[in-house]
């Protein structure tokens, strides 16, 4: 009988084992479910905002900063020669970018992820109880997020150009995909987003209910300084809308750009030349260093060759002892950068040059000259230029200044060369035999796959 008792005991072990708890939590990360569907607290808002701006910084790309490097390679400012990654040469300067590889599909998902992060915050704002966020603080938050989101959408169109951007993406995964909207509509959307952001900011009081990274220093008052940042972005968008021959077309478009720029933090005080919003980098644990540090990144010889003697902006350039040739490309200089150098998101130097471009658009060559000469003097320590002989000469001069003022800061030069129809054999030599002057990156292969290969651009 004893043995049977043992047996029954053993059997009951089997049954009680079943009572052991079965669920296992996520040990490694907080999860989306922890945030969604709960009233937004101020602490969570801080986490989400920091995550959002950090995501935007990460969207510049890593090892190297692909958004900037792709733009600068296509704009003939840079070479990236890497024995183990020849596609920076083969696909950008000697062929076409592969939509299935990091090259053609790159500098994309970061921005769309940022848009999702922005939409998540926007959707959660109404859920915050008044004890956590006042209506004014909610408006300030909305204004901030809308302004920042505009940057991400614009960066997408910078690199994809006429292939369009999907706008209506704030839907659960699994819903039908948002159509690609044509470039004019994208720019109009960005412009309107900035305007609605401005309305929110103006109702947003004098402080954000969250802390921003040090790169936003001087721009932390929603209704004043950050609103000026918003207008700076608006002016940039309006300029490229005008250059793209869109509504508002012609002079009124350029005028609208000038109006917005003048409402921004633009200044012709030499001391204010570099005032602006910056991405900052750090080598503290968990933080991210500047991703332009890259032994394979070199300057296109045009950049070092056409630098005017005495230009203080030449400090960004390191000339090599001897030229080197790799993968059929010869370079003589590199870009000087340290791990903690900030990268400008929008600075006065750029605003003034954007205004010069807009002034050329309305035929105000003298006004454009004044703006160019301000930058030459304040940033480069150079003598003023003589009056421009023509609009074309003015544009050439502005693009030259922009190259040195905004070197390795964004895809600005690619956008300008394209807008002025200068990215071709008339203005540049072919870098390699197969150089076809790639003007934009394709939409990623995964996007095509999910849409049955159809990447139609909708324009109504």
């Amino acid at each position, binding site marked *: 009988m004893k043995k049977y008792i043992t047996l029954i005991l053993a059997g009951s072990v089997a049954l009680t084992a079943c009572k052991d708890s079965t669920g296992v939590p996520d040990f490694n990360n907080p999860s989306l479910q922890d945030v969604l569907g709960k009233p937004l607290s101020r602490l969570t808002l801080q986490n989400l905002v920091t*995550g959002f701006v950090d995501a935007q910084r990460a969207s510049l790309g890593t090892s190297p900063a692909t958004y900037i490097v792709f733009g600068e390679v296509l704009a003939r400012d840079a070479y990236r020669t890497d024995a183990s990654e020849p596609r920076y040469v083969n696909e950008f300067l000697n062929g076409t970018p592969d939509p299935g590889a990091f090259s053609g599909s790159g500098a994309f998902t970061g921005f769309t992820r940022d848009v999702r992060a922005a939409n998540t915050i926007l959707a959660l704002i109404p859920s915050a109880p008044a004890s956590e966020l006042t209506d004014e603080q909610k408006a300030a938050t909305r204004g901030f997020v809308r302004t920042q989101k505009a940057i991400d959408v614009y960066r997408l169109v910078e690199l994809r150009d006429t292939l369009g951007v*999907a706008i209506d993406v704030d839907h659960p995964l699994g819903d039908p995909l948002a159509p690609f909207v044509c470039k004019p509509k994208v720019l109009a959307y960005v412009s309107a987003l900035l305007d609605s952001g401005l309305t929110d900011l103006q109702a947003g009081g004098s402080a954000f209910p969250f802390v921003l990274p040090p790169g936003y220093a001087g721009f932390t008052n929603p209704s004043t300084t950050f609103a000026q940042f918003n207008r700076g972005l608006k002016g940039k968008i309006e300029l490229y809308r005008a250059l793209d021959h869109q509504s508002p077309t012609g002079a009124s478009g350029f005028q609208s750009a000038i109006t917005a720029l003048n409402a921004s933090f633009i200044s012709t005080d030499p001391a204010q030349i570099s005032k602006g919003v910056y991405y900052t980098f750090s080598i503290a644990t968990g*933080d991210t260093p500047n991703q332009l540090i890259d032994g394979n990144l070199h300057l296109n010889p045009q950049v070092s060759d056409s630098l005017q003697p005495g230009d203080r902006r030449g400090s960004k350039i390191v000339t090599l002892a001897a030229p080197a040739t790799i993968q059929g490309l010869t370079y003589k200089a590199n870009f000087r950068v340290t791990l903690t150098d900030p990268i400008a998101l929008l600075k006065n130097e750029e605003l003034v040059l954007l205004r010069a471009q807009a002034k050329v658009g309305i035929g105000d060559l003298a006004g454009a000259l004044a703006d160019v000469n301000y930058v030459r003097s304040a940033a480069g320590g150079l003598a003023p230029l003589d009056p421009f002989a023509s609009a074309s000469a003015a544009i050439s001069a502005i693009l030259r200044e922009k190259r040195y003022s905004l070197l390795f800061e964004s895809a600005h030069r690619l956008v300008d060369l394209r807008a002025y129809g200068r990215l071709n054999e008339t203005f540049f030599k072919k870098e390699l035999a197969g150089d076809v002057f790639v003007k934009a990156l394709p939409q990623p292969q995964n996007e095509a*796959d999910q849409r049955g290969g159809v990447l139609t651009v909708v324009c109504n």
Partner: protein
Amino acid sequence: MRITRSFVTSLLLLGLASTSALAQTRRITGRVTAEGSNEPVISATVSIVGTPIGAITTDDGRFTISVPEGTTTTLRVRRIGYSPKQVSVGAGLSEVNITLAKDVLELDKQVITGTATTIASQNAANAVAVVSGESLRRAPTPTIENALQGKIAGAIVRTNGGAPGGGAQVQLRGVTSIGSNSSPLYVVDGVIVSNDAIQGGLTTITQASRVIGTSPSGQDQQVNRIADINPADIEDISVLKGASAGAIYGSAASNGVILITTKHGSGGRPLFNVTQRLGQFRLANKLDIRCFTSQEEATAAGYKTTPWQPVCNDFQEQFYGEKDLSYETDLSVSGSNAGTSYFASGLAKRDAGIEKGTGYNKQSLRLNIGQVVGKLNLRANTQIIHSLTARGIAGNDNANVNPYTVFSSTPSFYGLVPVDGVYPRNPYLGANGDNPFQDRDLLSTPENVNRFIGGGSANFNFLSSQRQTLDAVLSGGIDQFTQVNKIVSPRQLYFEPADGLPGTVVNRSSSQSTATLSLQFVHKFFPASQLFAATTSAGFRQGRNQFSSIFTAGQNLLFGQRNLEKATNITAFENNTLVKNFSYFGQEELLLFHERLLLTGGLNLERNSNNGDPDKFFSYPKAAVSLRVPTLPRFVDDLKLRMAFGRAGNQPSYGQKFTSLVVVTEEGVTGTRPALSYGNDKITPEISTEIEGGFDATLFKSRASLDVTLFRKTIDDLILTANTAPTTGFTTQVINGGQLVNRGYEIGFNVTPFQRGRIDWVSRTTFAHVHGIITELPVPAFNSGGFGIGFGAARIEKGRSPTSIIARDGYDTTFANGVRGSNGCPVGVDAATCGAFVSRAVHLGIIGDVTPKFNMGFTNDFNFGPVRLGSLFEWRHGGYVANLTDNYFDSGHLFADTALSTKRLAMQGSAQRNSRAYIVDASFVKLRELSLSYQLPQGLVRRTFAGAQDVRLEFSGRNLRTWTKYDGLDPEVSNNGNQNLNTFNDITPYPPSRSFFFSISANF
């Protein structure tokens, strides 16, 4: 749940209902000897057919057994290595002598059917491959997977690279998952052991994943941990190739189960064995690198020739030409004594790498003890292992530090070997200046593993009568290891200042524990009518797997600094996982018609914490039948027809059910941002349903045997990390869906073409073919992994093989008159017909499949008295590899065959866009093993080796020769380690080596 409990309870009650009743008995004694030599056969099992009663022979081959009074009794005698035999003992006889013939083809084996049940191979309903420990050790191997290569029909064992210490993937009956675990389940003496590959952080140096200092990546050239098991301890390995055999292992058995049984003591007197091996690894294959005959030629190839030397450096020989001594010492003792059996072993080995400073050191201790206390049978198996592996730098590299990457851009006239302690700075890598000889001498990559595997079982016999037995088996075990990786890249290395922070240190410390506990009851019933014998087993099993790992990396080291303190840009990651599972299982085996018909049915109900619903039980049933055909032609000794069905699962990975937020820090403020992958809180296991059937035939008086198996594996509810449209802000989403079907067949043919006296020749052939196809896919076809479409990506597409490679396949060109061509006007159509060129677009097509068309193994053993000559060839036909290494050398114009380089670059380039230049057939034949051994004559042994019983000298080699059209280093390669899909990339690997060993083995 409730149903399950009552199911188990009723099984328990069934066991209780029987009572024991012993009839009158008489004793039979006897002796078992080997045919021919008359030597006693030790530890043979003698049993009465149709009852559970049995005995085991002693040291001198004697046994005693009680049989029923007054009837003729049939005894069955079996011993591994001999053909089983049945002997009829008349009613009046009390003594019997039995001789056993040698089973040269190893036809008789015990085949595992459950966690505590086995059956003789003559009845087995599954094609379970059993490999004996002896055949694993013919030629020394770095790890056990290598020892299985070519020996099992249906197993493809792929070596990931040539670096010391292993790294190999076993694939049973094709790819059986897309987004989940790819490894078979490994079980050592009933304890589930980990075969995880933990990434050591090499990517921080090579930037293979293009992210500096972030978490470890799959390109760390990591080793999967089954490498720790000592092949010398293994008694045998059973390979359950799929769900039909492994259903009892539930949600971990979809990729097959590899059951390893270690040795146990038997046979009384202690038997000591000493084996000493000494040998060497040598570079097996080199790329044909260009030598420049003149400065002009080098200049024309685009190289700066100011430090011109009219020499040709053989970088590969200089770098991979080390021939240091490798050794392996095995000591073991085994025996048994009054209810106690023991096996103890020690191993010390070093495999010296062909690159200076690399190597694999392993020490292990094992103690297996068995103790019988009345009706209680206790067993404990323990093993302690330490290994130290240094593998250097290999594989994908974006920092120009991998030796082959450097060689692919450095012309051979420029010397890299240090002169008087000065390492020439490499002028051909831009500012980087890396010299791999400097890295080799100053950069270290040690990986230390300490592991304990311990298991025990207690078998209590409640009941033992002539008609039935009831046993309770409580067993459990733990596999616990820590792996510590450290990479120190000192600041003076030329490549280090590239990022502005010279010097890098990487630490990774990981620990894992896998624990299993099970209790089950086994009831055997032999009715008096002798119509059938029934074996019922039921029980439960609980498992827990916990992993935790901390990774830190820092830069900007002081001179001589080897730790993280005071380093800058410190990154830190922590990863923890916990998986819990619980299952009930039951199985019934019925042996009918004088052991001619076997019917088996079983069910496993399991829940797992990785599933979306951790409380839901999933069912994994199985059923099998085998029939030994009674009437046969004269030349057929035995013919068995078999059919088996089973279902198993592949559990989701930890974390697949969560949608994470990534924690970030920016200027001291922390935040969370959405991750790019979207989880699935409803995820369920992949369900693999397998049906297999075939026959086993023994022919010509056991001189030959043939087994043929056809199978069909259907995997439903595939776990897919499906791509999402990037515009949604997510790149991937975990889903269940789709179906994959693997069909194939396996043939084993063993024959003894010649056997006379002490001379024999045994030949074994295995052949396997598997073809997988994705029959359903709920998402659009997608590409996964790869290095850009130019070098192919894994293509998951309905109607295609899951291991398809998609790549560029020329252009689709459109002409004015509506004609379409692949690349220009089609051949045979004149230009006028085509009309003007309109447009062209790159055509993407599936141009290869990673899975080979078939795999064959040929083993031949010749015995001439004391001399044995053995060989094993493996032939893998088909299977494609993307050879990026060749592309690197072609791009640098550094291959000797410049015409071929030009041709391949033209194919790959924008003119043709044809990826076939580098995605190539990797068929091969390899001489895996060759061994020649000599057993010293007894007389000589007695005179020279005091106390030795027998001494064997052996000369053996592994991977001695490869025949292939593949133009790279080794057609067996996987840059990304063990994977389901992306196992086809050859990117500057550690080159292959061949090994030679001389061994002396003595028994005392």
